[in-house]
């Protein structure tokens, strides 16, 4: 493959370099010029972490073959604060607290720069519209948009430059104060290195072969053709694990790479370290795996039936974890209630979609310490597990936590660090693995999909007398955090309410779906979605206001939860009051209003999504004409 020649002006400097014809501009900027402020979040134009100016026009560098950059002037996020002085926008992002994990932020700063160049007076709606090509998963966008408005006003002289400075507060006085994040400058400039941005001399690139089957026995794996390919430095399978294989947050049921059988589509089967990613990819294609497909099960209810395919020998009933809670006498409670309501609720699998796909760098240091740098949310536990897996004393295993470009629970699992360790040991060279977005979605944990049956007995005055909740969750092929998620779902399932008779059962079930794991709120969302929806339905049946029914049942200071935890202070009353006020709630039972209600479309409620803010002037003019 002959190289092509790229001459361009990049961040004010002329460059003339060879490139591969298949490289994209993002590859060229990151891999060849080390301009790693341009992140790759999706590789498909969806997220905007890679936005750069090409001849003054903002574009997504993941959608651009490098040949298109020939003769162009390119400015990356690194050009905005070249001398170290942050641009007004970067300062505004710092001031407004617009950066959290920071992975989307270089792209956001670029999009905001483009927006204010296009219209220095853009209003909030137009700013939103112009930032539409950039995704953030931490902030909910509000602070980002606040920052752009702040920068706009400073640039236009409507606010003094001092508005960008940190608010004054006494030394050491932080609580209740607006304190700027100390890591924000490193993020708004793109200087911060995430694992996928890091390189080491002699570093190899890792690619992973993944299962195309949901459930299959591995008859054989033949890696010989891959191993002899030029540029391939190491190939590993489960056979390369020297110690006791298996990881998980609660049960160590997941091997570093499939051992004997695969249990979900996307499970790692083998991995290759090579001089470049393309060679590693080609080596994957040369690995021959013979599978014998097994019957698979995709629904937790099916998985619980006798005779269902069994995923793990240790759990012949496919139950990963059952958490039961019993308080009082629920059946008696129902019998004594004025109203008994039963409903079913379900929630779906959800992907965390942190902007930073999983990535890690591993090496064996001069003292023989196997070192893994990755955005792991659980490095201490990972270190212990890895020591056992690679049969080394804990002193010879080191985990370094790189900046986490969004985790939300999804980076708690040691999904790929084991492979990195094995390849670093096998090749004795630094190795790096960077997931594609597709790989991240296919192979890592999701929020547990759930189905809940909820039965509630109430008295006419609104008091809850009894609650029975049974939730079945699809835990997918491996345990990951399922046990903890079921536990928390059960503990919080009856809500912050004083209920004398409670029966809660939560089940995490093995299926051949992508494993479920930790995800913000860790199980509480699923059961509370059921409980809170149910309360609204019960309020309607009793002719009560939804706030009122919650107040009647709220736990109070000194109250006891259904897991016998004595509470000091309970803030529920304050929370309800604040929510009621902020929403402009119109009191009454849910069905008291008929088709219209007065608490929608108020001046301070957010209008529905629309596009065309930049035509607003035109439309007004049309109206006037």
């Amino acid at each position, binding site marked *: *493959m*002959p190289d*092509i020649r790229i001459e361009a002006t990049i961040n004010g400097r002329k460059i003339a370099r060879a490139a591969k*014809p*298949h490289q*994209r501009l993002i590859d060229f900027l990151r891999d060849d010029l080390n301009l790693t402020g341009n992140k790759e979040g999706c*590789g*498909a*134009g*969806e997220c*905007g972490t890679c*936005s750069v100016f090409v001849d003054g*026009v*903002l*574009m*997504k560098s*993941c*959608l*651009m*073959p490098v*040949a*298109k950059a*020939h003769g162009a002037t390119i400015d990356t996020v690194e050009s905005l604060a070249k001398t170290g002085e942050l641009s007004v926008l970067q300062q505004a992002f710092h001031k407004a607290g617009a950066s959290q994990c920071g992975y989307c932020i270089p792209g956001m700063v670029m*999009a905001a720069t*483009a927006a204010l160049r*296009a219209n220095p007076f853009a209003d909030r709606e137009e700013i939103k*519209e*112009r930032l*539409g*090509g950039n995704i953030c998963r931490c902030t909910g966008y509000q602070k980002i948009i606040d920052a752009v408005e702040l920068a706009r006003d400073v640039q236009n002289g409507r606010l003094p430059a001092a508005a960008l400075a940190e608010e004054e507060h006494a030394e050491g006085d932080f609580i209740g104060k607006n304190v700027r994040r100390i890591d924000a400058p490193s993020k708004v400039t793109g200087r911060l290195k995430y694992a996928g941005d890091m390189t080491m001399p002699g570093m190899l690139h890792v690619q992973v072969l993944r299962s195309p089957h949901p459930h299959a026995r591995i008859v054989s794996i033949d890696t010989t053709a891959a191993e002899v390919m030029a540029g391939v430095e190491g190939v590993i399978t489960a056979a390369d694990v020297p110690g006791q294989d298996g990881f998980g947050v609660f049960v160590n049921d997941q091997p570093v790479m499939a051992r004997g059988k695969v249990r979900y589509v996307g499970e790692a089967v083998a991995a290759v370290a090579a001089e470049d990613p*393309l060679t590693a*990819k080609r080596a994957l294609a040369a690995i021959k795996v013979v599978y014998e497909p097994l019957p698979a099960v995709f629904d937790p209810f099916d998985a619980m039936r006798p005779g269902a395919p069994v995923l793990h020998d240790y759990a012949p009933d496919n139950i990963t974890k059952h958490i039961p809670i019993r308080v009082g006498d629920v059946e008696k409670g129902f019998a004594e209630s004025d109203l008994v309501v039963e409903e079913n609720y379900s929630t779906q699998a959800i992907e965390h979609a942190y902007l930073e796909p999983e990535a890690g760098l591993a090496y064996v240091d001069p003292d023989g310490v196997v070192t893994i740098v990755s955005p792991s949310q659980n490095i201490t536990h990972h270190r212990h597990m890895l020591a056992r897996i690679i049969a080394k004393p804990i002193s010879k295993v080191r985990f370094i936590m790189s900046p986490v470009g969004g985790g939300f629970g999804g980076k708690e699992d040691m999904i790929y660090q084991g492979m990195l360790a094995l390849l670093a040991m096998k090749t004795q060279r630094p190795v790096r693995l960077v997931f*594609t977005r*597709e*790989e991240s979605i*296919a192979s890592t944990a999701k929020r547990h999909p759930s189905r809940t049956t909820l039965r509630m007995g109430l008295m006419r005055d609104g008091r809850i007398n009894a609650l029975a909740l049974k939730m079945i969750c699809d835990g997918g092929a491996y345990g990951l955090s399922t046990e903890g998620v079921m536990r928390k779902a059960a503990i919080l399932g009856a809500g912050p309410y004083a209920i004398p008779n409670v029966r809660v059962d939560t089940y995490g079930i093995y299926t051949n779906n992508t494993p479920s794991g930790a995800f913000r709120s860790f199980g509480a969302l699923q059961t509370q979605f059921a409980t809170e929806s149910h309360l609204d339905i019960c309020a309607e049946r009793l002719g009560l206001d939804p706030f009122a029914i919650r107040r009647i049942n709220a736990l109070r200071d000194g109250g006891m939860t259904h897991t016998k935890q004595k509470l000091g202070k309970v803030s529920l009353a304050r929370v309800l009051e604040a929510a009621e006020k902020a929403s402009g709630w119109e009191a009454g039972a849910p069905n008291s209003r008929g088709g219209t209600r007065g608490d929608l479309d108020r001046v301070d409620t957010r209008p529905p*999504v*629309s*596009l*065309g803010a*930049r*035509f607003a002037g035109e439309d007004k003019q*049309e109206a006037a*004409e």
Partner: protein
Amino acid sequence: MLICDEYITPSSLADAFAAMTRHRGRYRVVAGCTDTLPWAREGRAGDVEIPVLIDVSRIPELIARRVDDKRVRLGAATPVQRFLDVPELARALPAGPRCAVWFADDQIREQATVGGNIVNASPAADVTPCLIAHDAEVELARSENGAVARRRMSLTDFVQGPGRTALQEGELLTAIECDALPAYGGSFEKVGHRRSLVISVVCLAALVKLDAQGRRVEDARLSIAGIGPKPLRLSEVENFLRGAPLDTGRLEQAAEMPVALVASRTRQEYRRDVVRGFMLRGLVNAAKRAGADPAALSAELETAYA
């Protein structure tokens, strides 16, 4: 991953055809690459090895454009963003800016080309229905005995179904020609799962021309996508509206007419509701922008579909 051995950026149509002849059977044409690069990823085509990519986005003829009060000629490699930021184009194609603003995002529109959108032939393409409403024709060129041979056909005939067009081996889409309709009011309605970066579930281009009093429909142009294998022109509805008074009842009847055309593979019921709503909203918006007499339409209709 899209893997190629050679990436050629011809600077003239002749060079492009020379490269296409030289690499016959081993090349693929690209323009903005915004369909091609995401296509070559896991879950879709996966890793694709194409020996030669021929990038037509720098051929002067393909980025030229000509606009007057009657006709528009757009080079096939015109980026979609030009619908928004070239005032003469926005005037000639009144639904164009509204179509563009719903298309991907500001950044992708700078790269995504009109020709790429047409040749990609997605059932949910946004630009295609917008141009169909302008009676667009495509111009196709090929190299024949060293000369450039051209042919033309209507855009409606050119797009045949999902991913299928009348483009032949060795042919390039060079230009799109269509009516300039500066006297029309235009609207573009689109719904997808989110606001930006979203493929249409349904989209509708509506153009309306009214008499001087803003009370009678002189002409209407409607094209819809996302409801079947290819974008459709709604000629029957146009005939029903042409010459008729602009009134709520008539628009409501017109809005019912294409509901039966929904033939998508999924979510038909939802799409039927959307079609009805979009027809009303599209027609009301277009009529308002064409200078409708405020008394012509009921206030209820206007607020419901503004």
